[in-house]
């Protein structure tokens, strides 16, 4: 079992979801985030105050998958989230020791296999 954590551009979310669903990945959790990397920083001005925004909006995806699903999931994200410009984001693959489905208490493989 792995947890795939991906940081992507917000405007790519729909395409990434699309690609994941095509890859049969049907469970995931996302959250709003802000990232810093090589992106050019925006300068904003509020009255006399000029500021540089060091963080750009990103979306974080957390996807728990069984081992043989790691590769297709990563590939789906890599291809759907890419624009080729600096700032496309990263994917991290983390080891997971256990997974539970809260509804049933099922563990591991069973916990991430869709019900229907």
């Amino acid at each position, binding site marked *: 079992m792995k947890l795939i954590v991906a940081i992507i551009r917000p405007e790519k979310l729909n395409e990434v979801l699309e690609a994941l*669903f095509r890859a*049969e990945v049907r469970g995931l959790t996302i959250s709003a985030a802000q990232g810093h990397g090589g992106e050019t920083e925006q300068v904003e001005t509020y009255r006399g105050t000029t500021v540089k925004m060091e963080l750009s909006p990103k979306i974080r995806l957390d*996807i728990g998958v069984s081992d043989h699903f790691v590769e297709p999931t990563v590939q789906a994200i890599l291809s759907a989230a890419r624009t080729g410009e600096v700032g496309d984001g990263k994917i991290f693959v983390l080891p997971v020791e256990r997974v539970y489905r809260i509804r049933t208490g099922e563990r591991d493989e069973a916990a*991430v296999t*869709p019900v229907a």
Partner: protein
Amino acid sequence: MSEGAVAWMLVATALVLLMTPALGFFYGGLVRSKNALNTMMMSFGAAAVVGLSWALIGYSLAFSSGLPIVGDFSHAFLRGVGLEPNGAIPHVLFMCFQGTFAIITAALISGALVERMRFGPYLLFLALWAVLIYAPIAHWVWGGGWLAELGALDFAGGTVVHINAGIAAVVGALVLGKRLDYGRQAILPHNIPLTLLGAMLLWLGWFGFNAGSALAANEIAGLAFANTMLAPMATGLVWMILDLLRDGKATAVGLATAIVVGLVAITPAAGFVSPLSAIALGALAAFPSYFALLWRARTRLDDSLDVFAAHGVGGLSGALLTGVFAQKSWNGVADGLLFGNPMQVVIQVVAILAVIAYTAIGTFVILRAIGLVTALRVSEKAERLGLDVAEHGEQAYTSGEGAVLLLPTGRGSEAGVRGEAALKRVGGSA
């Protein structure tokens, strides 16, 4: 007809109409964000249905001569409501001005019904309530009915509007029952600036409400205006002091509430008492509502946004204190207790009791009757999900993440793609 009066009453009517959506913001800020739109729609929707039921029937029942307890149908469907003067203004404008009162009164009740009532039955309830409950009571007090005969003082609607709505709210809360989460989870206001916005606009509108009730641009309008400005200031100050005494913190929701309570309390008195009395009245009115609010939250009565404590209790304080502070030397109409006429208090009590009794029973009957035909409450699932999505298919605030276009044929086929993927779905991750 007086041009000055027309000028003022055009504005006053617009201002009172503004109060109803303003109430939507006041209430909307106090609920959870998943019910924000529904709560606002309860006010915006009220404008539509009550406005129409008023124009078509309610106005006639309230303001045609008829009987002491209710008007007749002589003005139904706006018959005979034309450009001819009614007092100093065109009849049709008078009808509109009065209509805005019906609308806001009905909308006030929604504060006790939020976060759980189905929207369709709610609209139906309001349309009926405005015709069957509000119109007769308006007739009693302002339409030449029996309370007018009796000499009850109600300048702009302490009994007709606020006590009426406050009691109807209690009945509504009881009939609907409490929210699933009430008393079990903290239900916090999701956006207090919206509530402050509502309070600000309510105050603005209230100048139309009270000073407009002079139906002329004259001294009494000026007096009512001054009282409408000063009373809520006094209520606000006392409320902040009570807050500070309680736990050292003057709350914004508290001040917004206090302003409304002060406005409610001065409503029946606005054209009848001196400005100094208005300050006293506003200050006094803070106490009963403040403690009613604290007390209510410990009960099982889920009058969700405290319509009773603010409008019912505030209206009661105001109606009684009108009987205390009224001063013939200012209003040319009647004196109150303090100025040698204790009977006025008795008359006020009669008016209050009559309104309470009628609206309590009537509201109960209407709600139960609708409840026989269709469910009043949303399902538990919808309540949990929030009424914005469940009843209106919208969210107040969206970022658009994860929203997939449906339907728009001829342009891409994302919907199709997803459908396909769903069919192919055989294993994987969920």
